[in-house]
């Protein structure tokens, strides 16, 4: 598609500014139970058009990319912008259209992976569950390979093009024995499907499911707390990601408003947004409004250094964007991290366990996303954990709720930071050990 034509047409129709954002996505997916249930292939083109008329902004996203479809979307965008009330905070779209040099975001084999290619990975994943424990069965899972190409152009420059691949798998394993049930799920995500650790993931799910056959209840009380790295990543993305977005800060919805320069967390806590590291999934050469990306230190030794900005929020404060505009094809850009990393420490997981007198090692939770990033109040329901006594894992437990405040936890309670960095899409973090925390159990 000729993006330049779309930009020109928008100007003809009366736009004072315009940008277009085209995504081409293709995905091969196998869904699994104890076998490969089904397989699907999807190819999708989506176009986002943002126009400004006299400080009024409108966004139209369309998957109808016929000539008529695009013309209809353009006219619709212009007509919305013309009748909408102006945004007094609007200055301009990004004018610094360029990219940071980056490579290794795209794996050709993954972009063209066929269902047959992924079948090999899926079979290895399914077979390895019973290697973890002979009676463990895979009951649900998936293997996927996806490629996304983004084309960006605006009235200020472009076109820019970037492409990335991501491949992932997960498996949920179950053991039924003696009237009891044990479950566990594990996953992995990589740039290339050839790097997926299918065997390790299947083995881990199977062997843990066996251990959780015997999961008991946890009495109500105060416990030392270890969050396994995968739990840390999901809690941080719920609690910290919205709080450091300049938009939430400016609109009065972040507990970090007006606190740059303050010591928010313990001095062991360093958090960086990685915009330009290929190994950090989510890094990219330019953001979703064509601004070059960079690595941004957000918390250094616990001190809040900056929020994350897109052009809109940056110009409101008369500063430069940090290159953190993210959007979908149908929505306006908002500032978000590319890949937020809580920097690892030096302690191994067994050392964290070893220094715990009476505590809980949390392996998996549900509902952590129900926590409140505005008040900082954290709730996460433990589905899989181990009770620790005198430095040893004594028994598996489940069904209790961690209830605390994330700022209290990361400032006053955090004791040791693990070395075991877990990399997910958009976030990475190690395991963390905290002093006594309230856990609501039975």
């Amino acid at each position: 598609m000729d993006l330049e034509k779309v930009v020109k047409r928008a100007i003809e129709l009366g736009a004072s500014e315009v940008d277009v954002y085209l995504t081409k996505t293709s995905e091969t997916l196998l869904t699994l139970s104890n076998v490969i249930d089904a397989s699907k292939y999807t190819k999708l083109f989506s176009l986002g058009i943002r126009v400004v008329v006299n400080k009024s902004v409108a966004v139209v996203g369309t998957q109808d990319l016929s000539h008529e479809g695009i013309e209809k979307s353009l006219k619709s965008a212009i007509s919305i912008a013309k009748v909408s009330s102006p945004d007094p905070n609007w200055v301009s779209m990004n004018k610094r259209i360029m990219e940071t040099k980056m490579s290794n975001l795209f794996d050709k084999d993954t972009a063209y992976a066929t269902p047959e290619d992924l079948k090999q990975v899926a079979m290895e994943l399914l077979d390895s569950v019973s290697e973890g424990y002979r009676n463990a069965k895979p009951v649900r899972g998936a293997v996927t390979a996806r490629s996304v190409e983004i084309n960006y152009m605006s009235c200020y420059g472009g076109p820019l093009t970037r492409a990335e691949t991501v491949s992932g798998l997960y498996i949920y394993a179950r053991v039924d024995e003696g009237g009891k049930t044990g479950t566990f799920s594990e996953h992995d995500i990589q740039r290339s499907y050839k790097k997926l650790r299918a065997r390790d993931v299947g083995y881990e799910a199977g062997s843990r499911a066996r251990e959780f056959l015997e999961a008991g209840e946890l009495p109500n009380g105060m416990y030392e707390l270890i969050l396994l790295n995968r739990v840390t990543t999901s809690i941080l993305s719920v609690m910290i990601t919205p709080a450091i977005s300049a938009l939430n800060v400016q609109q009065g919805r972040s507990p970090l408003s007006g606190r740059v320069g303050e010591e928010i967390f313990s001095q062991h806590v360093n958090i960086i947004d990685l915009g330009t590291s290929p190994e950090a999934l989510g890094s990219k050469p330019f953001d979703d409004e064509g601004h070059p990306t960079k690595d941004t230190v957000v918390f250094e030794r616990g001190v809040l250094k900056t929020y994350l900005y897109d052009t809109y929020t940056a110009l409101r404060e008369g500063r430069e964007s940090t290159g953190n505009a993210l959007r979908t094809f149908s929505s306006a850009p908002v500032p978000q991290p590319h890949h937020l990393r809580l920097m690892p420490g030096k302690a191994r997981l067994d050392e964290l366990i070893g220094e715990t007198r009476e505590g809980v090692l949390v392996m998996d939770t549900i509902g952590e996303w129900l926590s409140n990033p505005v008040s900082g109040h954290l709730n996460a329901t433990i589905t899989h954990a181990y009770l620790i006594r005198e430095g040893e894992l004594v028994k598996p437990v489940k069904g209790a709720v961690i209830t605390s405040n994330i700022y209290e936890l990361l400032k006053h309670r955090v004791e040791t930071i693990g070395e075991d960095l877990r990399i997910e899409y958009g976030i990475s973090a190690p395991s963390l050990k905290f002093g006594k925390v309230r856990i609501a159990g039975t």
Partner: protein
Amino acid sequence: MLRDIALRALKTAEVLGASYAEVRTQLFSYELVTVDNMVLREFSKTYRVGLGVRVLYNGCLGFSSTNDLSDDSVRETVSRAIVAARASKKTESLGVREPSRGRYVSSWKIKPEDVSDEAKTELMIRVNKAGLSVDGIKSSVSRLGIQHDWRYVVSSDGAELEYESYLIGVAHLSVAVESGSMERVSNQESSVSGWEFIEGRDWEEFTRSVSKLAKEAVKAPLPPAGKTRVIADPEMVGLILHEAFGHATEGDLVASGTSILKNRLGEEIASQLVTIVDEGVVEGGYYVPFDDEGSLKKKTVVVERGILKSFLTNRESAARLNLPVTGNGRAQDFTHMPIVRQTNFYMMPGDWGLEEMIKEVREGLYLVGKGSSGGQVDTGAGTFTFSAGPSRLIRNGELGELVRGVVVSGSILETLRGVEAVGKDLRIITSAFGGCGKDSQMVRVGDGGPHILIKELIVGGG
């Protein structure tokens, strides 16, 4: 035109040797007006159009989709579905259903697209201003969501169905600040209707009430942590049922062994006061006259007086479980395969009044759904969790002080067995802003019920 494309794709699938094929085409739009602290932050429109093809080839399922509707691309999509089927392992049949034909339309009086963009913007700025006018409110976001969905399904076993529906709603978030403490409260009201739903309500009053609740909640303490007896309001009952129980009745999870309800049909799994149904079209709920496999969605009685009567199925899980097809094979859109989903899942009313229940509880917690952000379940482990909005303690048989940050957790079966009273009221709701996620697919749902009294739940408090 989308009908012709679907019919051509169906023919291609048959020519290429598929023993069964179903083709879906969809035309979808979503309009979102967001006003943030009295500034129009976003006015966006999304249009989706495309085709999804599912085939059974040599007993294996394959699916492919595209939004490039040229002849070549449609042919390629069908053959990719067949290539995909070759990678699947399982040899399986599909559950038999009566193939139906028909056209379904939800009811509306005023088409939302006939209302000017200007009027929509003005309304939302006014509504947002009302929310922000309450003393102590520092931030206020109001949203108007309008969805239009047209779906067409045609299958090689003779089904040909189409529906058209509108879903419209207003959502509001208020953030209150007092002495360094912040709290947010959000609420939404939506309906399967046209613009008349918007005209028929006082939305300024709606946003003011959200703000007043946020202002009250910011000063409120957390509830005491631990086990307690609770009354849940209809919105909470909807959430609890959907999360704690509904997912476990989904046939694909049952067949794969991921559900705690496997092999329990006919067993008493809940209190005798409990009857639960899943129904495609019901007052207050979302509109699902048929599913994305082309099976009609009627009323399914899942639990009758405590006895587990039925699971929710699509054609694949029905065949695996040897059960009837209940019309619950739903897909987020044309790019996804249908999987088993709830439609409008709710509890039937009983004969208790709310006052009676509060007296009965004496000491406990009254869980309020308004302001809840949802819930989640691990169907295999049998553990669920959900958040409530600002709620009230029950002290000495009366409603007491407000508490915030309420998150409850429990075990699926113990909770349903622990239902001690069921109210005589009934309310079912849906949302134009969210839905239920499963396997990376989001679908709109409805849920609800009467007030109920539950013997005990774990409350994560302070």
